[in-house]
């Protein structure tokens, strides 16, 4: 298969798979997630290159991946809905000290994860000290404490 087509198929496939797996997959990287990422990158590399290890094929693939990334960035900039579909949107998971359980359940976030972020960012001790916690597009949890 043409390297450009191969790059396009793999890029879109990875985009869809990671989107389906949810936000926490990439952000809350445990040792096992790290190993999983290494395996995925190795598998992807084989699918991308096939048995063509030439410098030209590598250059074509790098250009293709960069080009696709550029196209997606431009599309996200021009069409905000496209950005929300491909990358998601932030989600409030704690509102005025109260964890929003159903939302947390949907995005597989535990209270421990929120408290970890609260301790890490502001040294907070209790859930009641958090005004808002937001699960961001990139999967990180941001904390807004009561002032």
């Amino acid at each position: 298969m043409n390297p450009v087509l191969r790059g396009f198929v793999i890029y879109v496939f990875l985009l869809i798979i990671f989107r389906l797996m949810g936000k926490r997959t990439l952000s809350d990287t445990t040792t096992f997630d790290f190993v999983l990422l290494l395996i995925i990158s190795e598998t992807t590399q084989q699918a991308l290159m096939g048995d063509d290890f030439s410098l030209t094929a590598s250059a074509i693939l790098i250009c293709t991946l960069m080009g696709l990334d550029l196209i997606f960035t431009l599309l996200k900039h021009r069409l905000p809905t496209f950005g929300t579909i491909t990358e998601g949107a932030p989600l409030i998971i704690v509102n005025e000290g109260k964890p929003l359980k159903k939302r947390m359940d949907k995005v597989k976030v535990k209270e421990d994860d929120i408290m970890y972020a609260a301790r890490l960012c502001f040294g907070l001790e209790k859930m009641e000290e958090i005004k808002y916690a937001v699960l961001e597009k990139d999967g990180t949890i941001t904390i807004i404490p009561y002032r």
Partner: protein
Amino acid sequence: MISPANKIERIKSTLQIKEEINQHIAGWKIQRMGWVFIFGIMLLALLGLFGEGILSNETKKSGDITTQYDRFIRYDSETKVLIVSNSAHMATVSLPQDYLKKLRSIRIIPEPDANDMSTDYVNYNFKGSENKMIAIYLVPKAYGNIDATMLINGMDRIVLHHFIYP
């Protein structure tokens, strides 16, 4: 239908963010369907829809000769066509040239003593008198459906069907 107990909390906050909760809800539904799709792919792969499994194993008989091969194969991934004869010696195996254009023959065991070409076929000739098993190793170099008629000793016709995944 979503029962009130399962309803996602709707809130009003002072935060300046575009939460798009309806899109989140739709996204979670699609995500669930995606998980079913992923598990479906895993199951079908285990069963052999993408090669190497019960859905893929094919056995064809023609007289005393049995041929085993994979119905579903993948591009650039080695596959085997195993021909077994219960009684007769196999002196010649003929494969169509069109077939060999799409599946490159990389190894034949036992090694043929000679090859020659006829109108549409490549003939592999084996010496001896007790040759009862031949394994042909092939690497697919095309995509899609491929049908071919293989000839054993110029008489027994075995139709091979492959689907090659990219």
